[in-house]
């Protein structure tokens, strides 16, 4: 995946489209990745997504009629395979999770039923709760919204569901994905609330990018988005937020926290839900925790669900990229690896006496934070003072000064002002 950082702000940063980029075209920001892309790259991407889909799943899909069918798919369709569940219909796919061949109907049923079992077993919801579904227009959240709506009706959860979306405020960025979310709203008849960075922070991402440059915008985007969901949820009086994190995401996080030696996060990251951790934080849960990413894509594909964006893969953290590649390799050796790693994570226990960082709250906004000021307050302070680097490096020493509204020294100012990205 593209972990490529553009050398200058005027380059299209999508690796697959580098070859196509003429250098002249207008750059726009592409969906959730907050990456700058040319229009032709964008069009190309939509096409590429389809092709990649077929390459990726050629082993899972046995439809002989597909126009994208790669040559080698012939190996899989020599003879009709019957669904291993109903043993009547012809199987159309091979489940990445278990290896069983299933027909469309049985796959849908199995997928939905598994999410239902997860919800019931983990007691994720109580009747009467208002549940916000974090909707980005991406595959995970689109499938989540669809399945939640369906299960809520099928099993009478008695939940009041709504879609919760964040608008970062970047021209052109949300064109497609917000449109998708809006269509989802109509298709699923769920209320939609879009909270914008501007109304929450007084800054749009466009304005932020102007000040901090391209290289660090992901930091801002990520930190702000996390809080935006909470703040939006509170505005809507939502009891719980559910997010589209899938099994691959969880396994990847386990690996990454091992690589980073982050024992506190390692312990927390397999939890299916978080209790309310303080003021301004709404409990979250992951109903798709045990769903394979591949199966989510298969589900969205066969259900013809409307989704646009790819998920954000441009994280500034190199280790996540390594963990992701490693996980994909593991999966190819033993497909159950993803769930095996989650099993490992769930059964880890930490030696007594190992120090855990104390989770405090931000002195300014009350959000959880291990420092005096939470990350987003520091970032905001930096933006408002015209010192963009404040939130990017480690400047914990300055927190007290910021809190007490003291001016910074000239030397400190100079260090934080330079934008040499």
């Amino acid at each position: 995946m593209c972990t490529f950082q553009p050398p200058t702000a005027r380059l299209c940063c999508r690796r697959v489209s580098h070859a196509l980029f003429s250098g002249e075209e207008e750059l726009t920001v592409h969906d959730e990745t907050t990456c700058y892309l040319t229009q032709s790259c964008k069009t190309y991407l939509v096409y590429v997504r389809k092709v990649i889909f077929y390459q990726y799943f050629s082993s899972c899909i046995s439809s002989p009629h597909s126009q994208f069918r790669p040559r080698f798919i012939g190996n899989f369709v020599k003879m009709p395979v019957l669904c291993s569940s109903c043993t009547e219909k012809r199987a159309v796919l091979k489940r990445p999770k278990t290896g069983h061949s299933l027909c469309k109907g049985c796959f849908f049923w199995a997928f939905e039923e598994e999410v239902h079992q997860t919800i019931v077993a983990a007691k994720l919801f109580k009747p009467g709760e208002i549940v916000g579904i974090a909707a980005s227009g991406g595959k995970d959240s689109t499938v989540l919204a669809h399945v939640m709506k369906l299960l809520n009706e099928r099993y009478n959860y008695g939940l009041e569901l709504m879609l919760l979306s964040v608008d970062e405020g970047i021209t052109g960025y949300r064109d497609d994905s917000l449109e998708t979310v809006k269509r989802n709203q109509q298709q699923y008849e769920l209320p939609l609330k879009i909270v914008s960075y501007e109304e929450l922070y007084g800054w749009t991402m466009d304005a932020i990018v102007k000040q901090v440059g391209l290289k660090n915008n992901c930091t801002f985007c990520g930190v702000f988005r996390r809080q935006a969901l909470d703040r939006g949820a509170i505005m809507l009086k939502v009891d719980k937020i559910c997010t589209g994190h899938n099994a691959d995401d969880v396994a990847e996080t386990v690996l990454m926290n091992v690589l980073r030696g982050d024992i506190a996060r390692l312990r927390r990251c397999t939890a299916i839900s978080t209790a309310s951790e303080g003021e301004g934080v709404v409990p979250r849960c992951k109903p798709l925790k045990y769903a394979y990413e591949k199966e989510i894509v298969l589900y969205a594909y066969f259900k013809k669900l409307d989704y646009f964006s790819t998920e954000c893969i441009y994280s500034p953290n190199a280790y996540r990229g390594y963990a992701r590649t490693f996980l994909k390799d593991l999966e190819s050796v033993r497909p159950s690896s993803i769930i095996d790693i989650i099993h490992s994570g769930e059964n880890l226990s930490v030696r007594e006496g190992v120090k855990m960082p104390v989770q405090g709250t931000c002195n300014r906004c009350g959000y959880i934070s291990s420092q005096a000021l939470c990350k987003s307050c520091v970032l905001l302070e930096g933006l408002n003072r015209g010192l963009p680097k404040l939130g990017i490096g480690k400047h914990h020493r300055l927190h007290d000064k910021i809190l007490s509204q003291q001016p910074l020294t000239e030397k400190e100012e100079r260090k934080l002002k330079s934008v040499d990205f």
Partner: protein
Amino acid sequence: MCQVDEDYHDGLERAEVPSVSKKCVKCKEASAAVVIRAGDTYCRGCFKEYFIHKFRAMLGKNRIIFPGEKVLLAVSGGPSSSSMLSQVQEGLSQNAHKKLRFLPGIVYIDEGGAVGQSVEERQRTVAELQAVFKATGFPFHMVPLEQVLDLPSSVVVTAPAASEQPASAYKAAVDHFIQSDSSSCSTAQDHEQTSVPEVQESHTQLLQQLIGSAQTLTARQDLLNTLRHHLLVHTARTEGYSKLMLGDNCTRVAVKLLTSISLGRGAQLAQDTGFADSRYGDIILVRPMRDYSAKEIAYYNHMFSVPSVFIPGGDTKTTDKASIQRLTESFVTKLQADFPSTVSTIYRTSEKLQTACRNSSTADQADRCLLCMCALDTAVENASAFQATLTSEQLSQNKPSGATGTENPRQNPAPVEQESTAPSGQCCSSGGEDCGRTERGGGGGCCSSAKEPERTDLKSLLCYSCQLTIKDMSSLERLPQYILSEAQRRQRRSQMREEISEFLLDDGDEGS
């Protein structure tokens, strides 16, 4: 989901090119001969001192090996375990104050039969190692892996631990040892074993069939590991040793930790990678080399001419992606090259872990895995990965025909080259390449699982990860008798318990 929500910025130090011709950081006089990590440059003398001190410090800190205790060193001939052997020699030759005070012996497991070495090759390796071992003056045992076929069932039963020694006992034992004649360790030389047991060809074939019945390289390596451990522990028991020293170094521990996580062994991590491992009860596994990096060991062995013997492994020719173990190793190695703190960071993670569930020594016999001897981690809890797997499998197959946990054949990217085990499975019930457990290689392969009734039963006796290994095996009949008969004993035991359950007032401790 946007993954940027947590601030991960620290911890990435790129490799630095070491600067040339520095002075030793320790004595600040002699010019440096080795760079262990950036900034740590040592001269020859100081490096040796540092290396030797580290070994004694590791044992001293953990206080687990008592003076006069018989300790068996598992030496494979590789750099790490050879270095361990040389450290023990070094420690025994030190002056009284710094002297190590246990009685060492050496064991070598000859795995040549499992990896298809010729008799001549095996004899050559054994002879080479024998020469090295003889030079130490320690008693040594050369054990062919084939002997695993003749182990007694007691190997897979946790023996009661030697009476729990309080911390104060260690000091008392040291004092007592110093007062008594410390030259007693020289008597160890008396019962030196030189003869190598003959290996019957039929035994080698049986072993190869056993290993070959594992259809993936991942399962094969895991199985080999388990068998090796059983044989090591058995040797220690029969020869009267109470500790078994393994040569796992820091790099190895890091790879093992990540491998264990990937294999679903999260609950067993602390035992798999910790300094002391008490899963066998009476025999404690000890890893005194886990503080040394592979690089340090290579430097030391080179500078001080520690003899090591190259043992061709079974998988030296295969690709990185052939097995999870291989993949993890190459992943860690590559990452370490870019980020020199990788191994030490993973290693530090292992320091902070402990075994899940109950204390390993208190777990009931019936709650232990038949293969790896760790406490079972398969209690079906609500909303767990294990539960989710069972659900997925149930929902994906025809209910009446399928037992709860039908196997899913792995898409095996590296076909295992054993001709007899080529997966041929065509299955009538599901009519597809993904049929359940067919009898592999059998001509009229159909789902009649009449021949393997044990498989499902065996599963209940295994931990999550060992179940995965068993899933990858074409047949369980080839498992050594000691494992099968212990499995039957446990099954009878639990049946019995079920029958009389209504009369039992409480969960009796009588079990096992």
